[in-house]
């Protein structure tokens, strides 16, 4: 008897498309690896310099490579503080907007509110930066007094960054909330829960993984934001936890220094790559932390 060939019949067209799609998927990994390689190459030169030690890099609190001070802490704390303020502003507001849009809004209100959010998302970050400098800072100075709030400060940059991230978080959260099956809501109503109780105690936890994804993207966006902090947060590294003081972030510092001119092998040049690598690592760590926390919650409710 002839052997029955049960293997899949190869279709050339299908194989070609399969390969192309695989390459597209692989491309993202390749680009990430290439970026890390480029950053690492130059950062390696930076750390190879005899003046630079890990103790200095992570331990000291002044950053001025041209005079031999290599403490990255002031830049990192400024980035973390501005990002934290941004998330603190955008997460509750974004969730509130998302809840309103998915649970409470009438179709009329939805159709009015969604375009406005799109506009907010489309505003260029440089405009946000000047908004922070020329509107938010005087407002903060009026509230907290001119002596406590400096002209360039982390708080106004952080708050405006929060406004910038708001549409991102609200639209992704709203998608997650809308995806929760109606059965869950109706079950809660059947048990006598009010609309608010249902939204907060049933729908929100069920959508937590989607909201977590929104949070991760929001954090990455906030950490990587350059223009707003370059204009409004300050132009000198400063190790402080007071959000009303001027302190330059990692991204703002890279933008300011590369705006001038640096010779290719100077320590200033390679230090920029070290900062960029540090930025990459900070984003990576924050992503990993968020993912573990989200996964832990996921197990409880599903």
């Amino acid at each position: 008897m002839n052997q029955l060939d049960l293997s899949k019949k190869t279709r050339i067209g299908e194989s070609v498309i399969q390969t192309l799609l695989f390459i597209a998927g692989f491309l993202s990994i390749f680009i990430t690896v290439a970026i890390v390689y480029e950053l690492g190459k130059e950062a390696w030169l930076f750390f190879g310099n005899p003046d630079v030690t890990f103790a200095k890099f992570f331990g000291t609190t002044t950053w001025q490579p041209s005079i031999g001070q290599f403490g990255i802490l002031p830049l990192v704390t400024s980035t973390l503080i501005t990002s934290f303020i941004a998330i603190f502003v955008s997460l509750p507001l974004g969730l509130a907007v998302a809840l309103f849009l998915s649970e409470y809004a009438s179709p009329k209100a939805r159709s009015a509110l969604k375009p406005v959010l799109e506009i907010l998302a489309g505003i260029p970050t440089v405009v946000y930066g000047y908004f922070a400098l020329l509107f938010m800072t005087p407002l903060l100075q009026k509230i907290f007094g001119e002596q406590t709030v400096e002209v360039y400060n982390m708080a106004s940059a952080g708050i405006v960054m929060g406004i910038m991230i708001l549409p991102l978080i609200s639209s992704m959260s709203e998608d997650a909330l809308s995806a929760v099956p109606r059965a869950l809501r109706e079950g809660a109503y059947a048990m006598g829960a009010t609309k608010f109780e249902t939204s907060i105690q049933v729908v929100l936890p069920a959508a937590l993984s989607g909201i977590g994804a929104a949070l991760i993207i929001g954090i990455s966006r906030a950490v990587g934001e350059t223009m707003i902090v370059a204009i409004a947060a300050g132009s000198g590294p400063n190790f402080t936890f007071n959000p009303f003081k001027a302190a330059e972030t990692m991204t703002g510092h890279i933008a300011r220094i590369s705006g001038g001119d640096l010779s290719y092998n100077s320590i200033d040049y390679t230090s920029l790559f070290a900062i960029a690598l540090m930025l990459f690592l900070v984003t990576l760590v924050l992503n990993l932390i968020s993912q573990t926390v989200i996964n832990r919650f996921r197990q409880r409710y599903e």
Partner: protein
Amino acid sequence: MIKSVRSLMFMLMALSLLLAACGAPSAPVEPTAKPEPVVVESTAVAPAANPLAMYAPDAVTGDVTTAGSSTVFPLSERMAELFQQEGYTGNVTVDSIGTGAGFERFCKTGETDISNASRKIKDAELANCKALATPREPISFRVGTDALTIVVSAENNFVTALTKEQLGKIFTAQYTKWNQVDPSFPAETILVYGPGADSGTFDYFNEVVVAPLYPDAAGKADIVAGKAALLGAAGAQFSEDDNVLVQGVEGSKYAIGYFGFAYFNENKGKLKSVAVEGVEPSQATVDDGTYPISRPLFLYSDAKIMQEKPQVAAFIYFYLNNVDKEIVDVGYFPAPDADLKASMDAWKIAVGK
């Protein structure tokens, strides 16, 4: 109902765009000088018009790339504008990146035709120029004088005059509170704003005010130690963009900063200048030399560039002939006549006339 909400949104968006367009600031500053004929008789060449007619603004084509000092920037921008008004068809780009950065582009990468500088070129930079693939020999053209101005906010009602030593200690954070400078001043933290290390203003301030406070073993002012002290001042904000510094100083009663006189002049309403060693910066004190921190402003170019690109030579020629008419309006002070004449002679030698 839905339709009216939508149309209301559209109307609001259109209205906001319209308001933004109407409220936008008016067109760039119009020059005050009337257009002048460019070909000016020079004292050396008798039949003046003909050999120099090729350097008239409308006779040259091609672009001119300049970069460097943020102090010289407003002056070069003004001269570029006038040059184009006289019929020049190309583009003059002026980048404000700091004197040091300007020399990097001129001498290390050879990208620019003219370097703007608020200090003389350093030996290291000269060496870089010689080491280029096509070596460059920078020629300096003195174009004006700047009075480096120490500024505080107009709301500051306690500081009127400071000595060089007090300034040095303020900007290197040896004094952190105003009452350390003078017991009668309030006990508030001094907010320091200054240019960064790429700036010629920074170099000059270091050389004249800060380095003398750090004498080396031989008793001479130590430039490197001064630079380290300035850059290491805790909490100081640095920027090569003087407008950032202006914003910073304007924003607080306890802020202090320094930059070229033109930036102070433009913001006279919100800023106050501080007298140095008892002398306020002004035309009179700069001319007679009593203002202790005035410095020359230069353009640097190379003879070969000027000969290969006549538009560069034409721009410099126009600059030297017309700078005195514009410089006071821009906010600086004219260079001594002898220096301007020397610059013109250097130009003639460079183009081979």
